[in-house]
């Protein structure tokens, strides 16, 4: 199946289709980082990653795409120009997306084969006369009311969490009051439906100030923007007018006879920038699907020009989307629990194993503990490398990205401790070189700073980049035997975060070698029938604690305390009054995993 262009497949179109099938660009869902974490390299398979769906021919679905992300994926898919196709790797294409053209398991060889297959499909079917328009989930504009569909969508997102100064409890700068911002945020679905549904005047928060000036008299007027949009939309569809909104009926002019309204009065309600200029602020979504940011992280910036005045996270589209599968027999629990986060699956597997083990045993099983350390440190190194690859994408540093991906693959392919030990010199050279690159330092130093933030609440590398001696490993006697000391930096900015992660990567290789085990921890769960268990491990993103209750051999309750929930509180701090790209660097430096956020 392929979404073709409209037209009879004439010979020249067939020829063109053959040629264009050779150059395929892909928009990756949930994100490139998931592909890398799954051991896939789309680029090596011949799919160059696109930064926007406009430049993509293939929607590449990787790993498990939770149903809650499907709507965003469908929107992105709708924005791709035809001919377009879906390639599903290790997953199915969830509705409302159409079925995938090619579906393969999540292996690099399969991906390579799938791309060849996709080329053949594209070469054959790029043009067709029998087409149906793809509709992300909207009712056709004509009937206007399809309450079932919209109702469901709205409800699905109605518990959108809006993290702002009121609820986050994090550190905030001072933001001047902005009209409309403190009102509840309209959920995405309703906004999305805005142009299909009849507009409800007064319910949409964004009003556009319109000024009419006539004979020296000025009258500000608020116009419901969505309705306004709709009229314009209509025009845009029907004519390619020269003027935006040509033929659009003029809004009635009200003449105000009484007094003269000065520019000062007109602009007094507008938000003020630090330099005192009244400007309109613009809310720009950067996610849930924004290449460079972790897929699923629904970040929204309120921008004053190119500067962020406020950052908010809507409910993470992927947050614990698979939590429903957790309860069930104990035996498969670690595997199921590992699916929580494709970016650090092994870390959560280890966490689950340790919690179950705590339930079972009175004495520590040292073999198990060593293999837990080996797996966890391997995961840490992989996770940091994956992060580095995304980070380099955002920075536009091609060399860094290519090196990170190549190291990632070599480490992932390393079958035993010896081959890991052989990787060590290469990693050393890489780390030293990255740390000694002045342009990178200039780029990152002072960006995404969170100096003075409450480090006690932070977790993982982020806390350690601010000098916080926060590491669950320090309390572990086995780590103590290995001579482990946490990596600390004091810059509390993006550069320190990078340095901590680079140093930890190197350290993790040593720990892996010292632990001498790489295989997944094997736990005999048949003994675990009833009880409660608790475990704390240092995942790549920080300390994570799991409480489990099991009865009758079934997992009953699962209570996870994950690091990203805490580090997310820095969101305002690292973005406030930063230029967009710096704000994004700050957010990515926190290495939030949208998968483990519980909201």
């Amino acid at each position: 199946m392929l979404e073709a262009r409209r037209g009879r497949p004439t010979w020249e179109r067939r020829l063109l289709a053959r040629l264009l099938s050779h150059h395929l660009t892909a928009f990756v869902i949930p994100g490139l980082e998931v592909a890398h974490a799954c051991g896939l390299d789309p680029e090596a398979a011949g799919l160059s990653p696109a930064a926007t769906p406009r430049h993509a021919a293939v929607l590449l679905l990787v790993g498990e795409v939770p149903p809650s992300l499907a709507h965003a994926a469908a929107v992105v898919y709708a924005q791709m120009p035809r001919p377009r196709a879906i390639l599903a790797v290790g997953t199915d294409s969830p509705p409302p997306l159409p079925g995938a053209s090619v579906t393969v398991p999540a292996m690099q060889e399969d991906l390579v084969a799938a791309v060849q297959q996709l080329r053949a499909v594209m070469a054959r079917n790029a043009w067709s006369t029998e087409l149906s328009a793809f509709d992300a989930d909207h009712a056709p504009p004509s009937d206007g009311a399809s309450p079932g569909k919209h109702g469901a969508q709205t409800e699905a997102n109605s518990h959108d969490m809006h993290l702002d100064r009121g609820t986050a409890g994090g550190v905030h700068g001072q933001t001047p009051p902005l009209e409309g911002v403190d009102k509840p945020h309209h959920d995405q679905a309703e906004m999305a439906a805005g142009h299909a549904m009849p507009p409800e005047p007064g319910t949409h928060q964004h009003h556009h100030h319109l000024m009419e000036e006539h004979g020296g008299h000025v009258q500000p007027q608020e116009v419901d923007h969505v309705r306004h949009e709709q009229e314009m939309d209509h025009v845009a569809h029907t004519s390619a007018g020269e003027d935006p909104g040509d033929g659009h009926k003029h809004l009635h002019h009200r003449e105000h006879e009484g007094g003269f309204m000065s520019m000062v009065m007109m602009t007094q309600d507008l938000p003020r920038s630090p330099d005192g200029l009244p400007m309109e602020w613009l809310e720009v979504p950067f996610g849930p699907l924004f290449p460079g940011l972790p897929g699923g992280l629904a970040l929204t910036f309120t921008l004053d020009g190119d500067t962020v005045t406020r950052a908010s996270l809507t409910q993470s589209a992927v947050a614990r989307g698979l939590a429903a599968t957790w309860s069930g027999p104990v035996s498969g629990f670690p595997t199921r629990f590992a699916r929580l986060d494709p970016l650090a699956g092994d870390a959560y597997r280890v966490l689950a194993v340790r919690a179950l083990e705590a339930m079972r045993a009175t004495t520590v099983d040292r073999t198990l503990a060593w293999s837990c350390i080996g797996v966890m440190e391997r995961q840490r190194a992989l996770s940091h490398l994956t992060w580095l690859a995304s980070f380099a994408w955002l920075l536009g540093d091609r060399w860094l990205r290519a090196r990170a991906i190549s190291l990632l693959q070599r480490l992932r392919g390393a079958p035993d401790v010896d081959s890991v030990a052989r990787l060590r010199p290469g990693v050393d050279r890489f780390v030293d070189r990255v740390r000694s690159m002045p342009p990178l330092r200039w780029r990152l130093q002072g960006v995404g700073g969170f100096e003075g933030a409450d480090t006690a609440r932070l977790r993982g590398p982020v806390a350690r980049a601010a000098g916080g001696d926060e590491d669950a490993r320090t309390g572990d006697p086995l780590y103590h035997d290995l001579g482990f000391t946490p990596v600390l930096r004091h810059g509390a900015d993006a550069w320190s975060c990078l340095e901590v992660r680079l140093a930890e990567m190197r350290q993790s290789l040593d720990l892996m070698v010292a632990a001498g085990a790489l295989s997944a921890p094997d736990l005999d769960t048949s003994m675990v029938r009833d009880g409660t268990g608790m475990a704390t491990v240092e995942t790549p993103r920080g300390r994570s604690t799991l409480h489990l209750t099991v009865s009758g051999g079934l997992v009953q309750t699962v209570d996870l305390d994950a690091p990203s929930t805490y580090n997310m509180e820095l969101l305002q701090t690292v973005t406030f009054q930063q230029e967009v790209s710096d704000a994004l660097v700050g957010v990515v430096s926190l290495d939030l995993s949208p998968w483990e956020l519980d909201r």
Partner: protein
Amino acid sequence: MTVQAGALALFGLAALWFGMAVFRTHSMVRSAFSLLTTMAALGGMFLAMQAEFLGVLQLMMMATEMAIMAIFMMMYMMDPGGLGQMEMTHQKRLSLLAGIVGGLAGLALAVASAWGPVASRVPNPARQTHDLGIELLGRSMLIFETAGVSILVAMIAATTVVISRRHE
């Protein structure tokens, strides 16, 4: 000669047309770009009149300067995209009058002035640039240095405007 006059007329009309477009649009940015096009058309007129240095200079400087004007228009005017179809004109009668009077005055000046004999030969463009340089360093040296001082004044004024903003 005919080609030259034709090109001159063409660019002149284009300049006028885009000059009008500046006020005929609701979009601030489009208005700024219209003005840019007018200025570029003036550059074309200079080229048609074989004033190469002036023409190219006009083309170069107006592109950047009008674009910088665009950012101020966008920062200070309501609804810079023109989505609201906002009426941008005001004091219509007065401005109409001023426009007519100004236009007539300009026309009268153009007609009444003694322009002197038509230049039959234009010095070649390289010569023009050279002569301009000699002029700058010779007779017009003081004017040239005064221009430097006025640019300095403009820079100081710009700085003052910028920093006064911050202290507010």
